[in-house]
């Protein structure tokens, strides 16, 4: 499965969820698949997607509310990016936000920097998440990804979905040149409206 195929599946499954996506090719490809206000693209700050998603999850979490008012906060990370800030794993395991879901698209290379191999060629990042206290699910093909993602949404606690994908970037995907302030503002407005809507419909 190529990254863009995985992103097509994730985009279809996350229309109503806040999604924080790591920089460069992953952000570009997700925007090419579906550019929506529930996407927070990190245009730089490689490695920070998991931390940002953790912060949003903590900000939305209410004691006893399980998945929080809007369901899971989804981080889409790459293996190279996660390895830049692996602290996100023990931090998530320690703070245990019930509404945090990290999807790791692991192609074992730095996809945006000439395909240089990452530690993921020898280190199982899913096991690292397991050791840090996350619930870990795994997927390799499209069907498995659909099914595992659906299951991940039903679990409480930080959930780590480890997805093996092929190396390589989708061709002819335009660069993402939007002003980060605009990206932040539209995400913030979307999340505000979504939270209000969830509060109104809550039993």
């Amino acid at each position, binding site marked *: 499965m190529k990254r863009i195929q995985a992103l097509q599946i994730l985009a279809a499954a996350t229309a109503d969820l806040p999604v924080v996506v790591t920089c460069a090719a992953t952000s570009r490809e997700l925007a090419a698949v579906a550019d929506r206000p529930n996407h927070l693209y990190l245009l730089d700050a490689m490695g920070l997607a998991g931390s940002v998603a953790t*912060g949003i999850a903590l900000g939305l979490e209410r004691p006893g509310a399980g998945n929080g008012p809007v369901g899971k906060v989804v981080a889409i990370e790459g293996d190279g990016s996660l390895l830049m800030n692996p602290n996100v794993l023990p931090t998530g395991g320690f703070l245990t936000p019930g509404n945090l879901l990290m999807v790791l698209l692991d192609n074992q290379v730095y996809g945006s920097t000439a395909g240089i191999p990452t530690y993921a060629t020898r280190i199982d990042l899913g096991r690292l998440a397991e050791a840090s206290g996350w619930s870990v699910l795994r997927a390799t093909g499209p069907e498995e990804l659909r099914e595992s993602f659906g299951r991940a949404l039903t679990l409480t606690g930080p959930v780590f979905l480890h997805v093996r994908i092929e190396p390589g970037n989708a061709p002819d995907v335009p660069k993402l040149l939007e002003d980060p302030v605009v990206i932040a503002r539209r995400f913030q407005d979307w*999340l505000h409206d979504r939270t209000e809507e969830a509060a109104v419909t809550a039993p």
Partner: protein
Amino acid sequence: MTSPPVPPRPGAAGTATASTAPSAGRTGPPPYAAAVAAGLRDSGADLIGYVPSASVAPVITALVAADGGTGGSSERVFPLSREEEAMGVLGALPLAGRFGAVVMQDNGFGNALTALTTFNAAYHLPLLVVANTRGGLGEYNSMIHTLCQHVPGLLDRLGIRVFELDRRSGPGDWRDVIAEAGAHARMTFRPVVVLTHFWSTDGKGA
């Protein structure tokens, strides 16, 4: 020939003024640490993350105790393992309609600058950072000066607003400045840093 005795400076270590003098049998935090904790509470921070430092340990203890927490954590105060992730975790709160603060020491800006500039500042996300200083007067570590003496200049060069507090003002001023820095961060939609120089206060300078 002997030198005449040097008169003590107001507020100098060992010469605490009435407002800062530790009272016998006091069990709470020293007044300057208590002022930082109170300023953080007054700042409107919904959640506070910290990266440990001996200077801010009494601040954290006071914040956690006020919330009824234990073991260095409470519902709204928690540790983080590195300053970079602190900028991501607490800096993301405004996206969810909330506001965060980070307590750390200033040599951690070396770890935090990419996140602070390309996330918090670039996305116009308010954040209050309160950092005790290393590398100034009273510092014992010969290496830490290399980074820390440049922190105010570095932050200024990067467009990050900095306010500094030291022995020349009392705990009440520290509390007010920290609280107002939180309002300033929200008003400017940017991260704001308060550098606290504990040397020659009743706190631990290094």
